[in-house]
Structure formats: structure tokens, C-alpha cells
């Protein structure tokens, strides 16, 4: 069959040819659009993606180096904090004497500070168990010990008392800071001086009581390790807002009493509610509902 006869036979079905032509028209439009999309992606994304890749690779290298250094540090320091948490902060038994001990220290402190009229009354409720889902996917059973505390004191003691209760159970400087603040400082460390991670780790891991007694030696290490103004400004802001009230509290009589009565580290209390009612003669009644915990 020659080309001419094929052409002639094809011409006999014009409608079929137009329909097939339309299908090819649509297919070519789709393919053309694909070309446009790919060219547009290359023009708009290739450069930013190519710029991101070496930065990400460098970040991964820095983080792996920091992990090696931190592992070495952890190996040298051991798991002292975990042991303290298991012994004092969330113990295996109810350990009521440490709860009572903490509130006797509180009473002694406010009486020394304010007047002998100040009173602290504590009621420990019936414990109950709750399952707590953990980050590793497992669940641990926790015994919850509800506490009701009523304190009558002078107005100026309210801030210090609420600070001390909120502080109870925190061990190190890093415990006080919110995750967002910690991560911000770590990311800045990565950007400015990756090897400074050891100093930062040392600072976050510093015992709160030790830090409060001599904050400058800890803070000076950070100031010596970094030069970035942004990092040092964030650090100074964090000291002012989060750590200054603790330094004022623990460097004073409250810290001395906790240390001398062996109540540091103290039990962890989570505040459920706190109420202050004004009384005559500039006095105040604080009523708190707290929870202490032990492992079941």
C-alpha cells in the first residue's frame, strides 16, 4: 500500500481523524504544561535548594560533633541527676517525711522572715494512681498525693512563697527554663560556636543551689565562650527573667534552710490552684492545692 493510498484511506474518516487530533491536542497541551512546570520549578527552586543543601550538611556535621562531645561529657559525669531524681524528687515510696520536712522549712523560713504569727497547715489526701504516657511510647504508673496547704502570712511574703513552691522539684538551671528558651540558646550555639556546647551543657546542668550561691562563676564561663551579641543578649534576658528570682530566693535564708535541713533537692510539687485572700492588718491567707508524686 503506497503512501497516497494510505492518505486517501485516512481521508475517508475525517471525523475519526479530527477526534484523534483533538486527543493529541489535549495530550500536547498537558505535556507543554509539564514543561512549563518543570522549567518554573528549576528557575524558582533549584537555586534555593542548592543553597540549602551544603548548609544542612554542615548542620548535620556540627550536630554529630556536638553529640560526640556531649557523650564524652555524660560518660565522665555519670548519671548523678537521674539518681537524685529517683531518690528525692520522684521517689519510689510515698516518703511523706520529706514532704512534711519541706513544709516545716517553709514555716520556719516565713516565721523568721515575717512574724511568729505566720502559720502553715498541711493536709495530705488519699493517694491515687494514674498512668503516664512517656515520650518513648511506654506508660508508667504514678502515685499522686494531693496536698492542701494554707498559709497565713504578711503580704510581702506571697511572692517568695509561691516562687519556692513552684521551684520545688527543679534540680538544675536547665530545669527552670522553658523548652523554647533552651532550644533557642542551643541553636544560637550551633550557629556561633559549636564547640561551646560543652559550656552550655555545663551551665544547663549546674545545680540550682550551687548556681544561686555563686552565679557569676557559671555565667562568666558562658560570656567567655561566646562573642555574638544576639546570643549574649538572649542569655542576659534569660538570666533576668527566669533565673534572677531563683538566685534571690536560694542565695538567701530559704536556700540555707533547705540545705541545712537536708531538704535539697526537694520533692516535686505541681500547683493545681493557688488563691490569696486579703485579711485585716495587711495580712494574707494563701490556699494552695498541690500534687506530689511517687513511682508505683
Amino acid at each position, binding site marked *: 500500500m503506497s503512501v497516497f493510498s494510505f492518505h486517501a484511506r485516512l481521508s475517508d474518516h475525517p471525523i475519526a481523524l479530527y477526534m484523534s487530533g483533538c486527543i493529541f491536542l489535549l495530550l500536547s497541551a498537558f505535556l507543554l504544561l509539564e514543561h512549563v512546570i518543570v522549567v518554573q520549578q528549576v528557575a524558582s527552586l533549584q537555586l534555593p535548594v542548592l543553597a540549602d543543601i551544603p548548609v544542612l550538611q554542615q548542620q548535620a556535621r556540627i550536630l554529630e560533633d556536638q*553529640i560526640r562531645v556531649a557523650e564524652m561529657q555524660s560518660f565522665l559525669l555519670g548519671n548523678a541527676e537521674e539518681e537524685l531524681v529517683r531518690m528525692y524528687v520522684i521517689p519510689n515510696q510515698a516518703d511523706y517525711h520529706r514532704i512534711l520536712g519541706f513544709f516545716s522549712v517553709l514555716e520556719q523560713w516565713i516565721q523568721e522572715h515575717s512574724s511568729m504569727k505566720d502559720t502553715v497547715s498541711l493536709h495530705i489526701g488519699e493517694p491515687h494512681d494514674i498512668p503516664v504516657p512517656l515520650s518513648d511510647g511506654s506508660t*508508667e504508673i504514678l502515685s499522686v498525693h494531693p496536698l492542701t496547704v494554707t498559709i497565713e502570712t504578711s503580704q510581702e511574703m506571697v511572692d517568695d512563697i509561691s516562687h519556692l513552691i513552684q521551684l520545688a522539684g*527543679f534540680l538544675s538551671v536547665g530545669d527552670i527554663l522553658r523548652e523554647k528558651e533552651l532550644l533557642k540558646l542551643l541553636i544560637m550555639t550551633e550557629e556561633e560556636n559549636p564547640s561551646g556546647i560543652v559550656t552550655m551543657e555545663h551551665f544547663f546542668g549546674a545545680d540550682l543551689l550551687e548556681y544561686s550561691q555563686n552565679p557569676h562563676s557559671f555565667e562568666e564561663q558562658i560570656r567567655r565562650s561566646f562573642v555574638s551579641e544576639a546570643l549574649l543578649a538572649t542569655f542576659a534576658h534569660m538570666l533576668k527573667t527566669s533565673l534572677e528570682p531563683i538566685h534571690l530566693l536560694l542565695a538567701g535564708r530559704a536556700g540555707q534552710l533547705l540545705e541545712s535541713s537536708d531538704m535539697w533537692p526537694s520533692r516535686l510539687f505541681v500547683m493545681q490552684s493557688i488563691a490569696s485572700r486579703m485579711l485585716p492588718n495587711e495580712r494574707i491567707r494563701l490556699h494552695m492545692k498541690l500534687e506530689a508524686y511517687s513511682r508505683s
Partner: protein
Amino acid sequence: MVQPFREVFRRMAVPFFLFFLVLTTLLFLSWIFLLPILTRTEVHGESKNIRDLITYRKELQADVSRVRRNRNQLVLPGQDPLYNVLKQEKHKKVSFSSLRREILRTALSHSSVVKDAVRISFIQYDAARDMLTLEGSVFAGASSTTVLAEFIDALQALPWIYVIEQPDFLRQKNEHGEIFSPFSLDISLHVSVLRETFPVL
């Protein structure tokens, strides 16, 4: 007239079909062979097109996040998972003293006309339900209810206050003959703004 038009229509059919057949074939071949060659980039000796590059970047980002999580676990204190859960629970509660100070400051700023007009006698921060309860009285004579309404508006304007349940606006007289408006306010707090505004301690 109809006959030549039909003839034109018939004669145009084959070129129409062939044109789009050839165009589609060429575009298809370009899509399969030409486009990938023109848009490939070499990264560490490996030739990648834009889609491979985007996937590679996503993998790298995931890698960095994973390594960062591992680093954070090592560097941040408290590796006991139960302790971490309870610490986060503590971090959800804000400083009562800062909260109280802010409430008293707002009350004081509404006592400018009559000294000590807004007197707050009870403040409760229900940290478990993120609620605040205030009780007190406004001592501003006949305008006590107006000052109370202004005080509520001022509280509502604070970014960390979500909703204030409207109280009853009453005017009463005490034993000294002073006119006052007692109030009890139940306030729902804007949790995320509250945590941004106030420290843990």
C-alpha cells in the same frame, strides 16, 4: 457551496491529525529525554533533577532534626522520662506572683479618680483549668458600677485574658454609708499568650 466546504473539511482532517500527532510525540520525547538532561544538577558526583533535589533536601532536613533531637536529649538536663513529663507539667503553670502583680496593677490604674477605688480581696489562679477568679469591691460612690465596668474592660483588653463572665452590676451601702459595687469575676485565660507573657517563677 456546501460541497467545497465539506471537501475542505475532509482535506484538512489528515494534516490536523498529523500535526498534533507529531507535536505530541516530540513533546513526549522531550519530556522523557531532553528535559531531565537539561534540568539535572550534579551534587557530590551524583546527577539529580529538581524533584530528586527536593527529596534530598527533605531527607537532609529530617536527618538534621533527628540528630538535633538526639543532641538535645544528651545536652539538656533530666534524662528521666517521667521527670521530664512532670517538669513540662510544671512549666505549663505560670508564676502566681507575676499574675497577681499584673491584676493589682490594672486595678490600681483604675483607681486614679477615687484613690483605692478597686479593691481586690480574693485572687484564685486555677492552674489545672487555666481559670482566674477575682473578688472584691469598687468604692467610687455613685459611679461605682461605671468604674467596675471600666475595670472589666481594662482586664478584657489584656492579651492573656480570653473571656470574662459578665458579673451582676450591683450598688450597695456599707455600715459607714459608703456606696460600693461588689464583684466576683470568673475569667478564662488565653493559655498560649499567658505562657508567653509570664515566667514559670
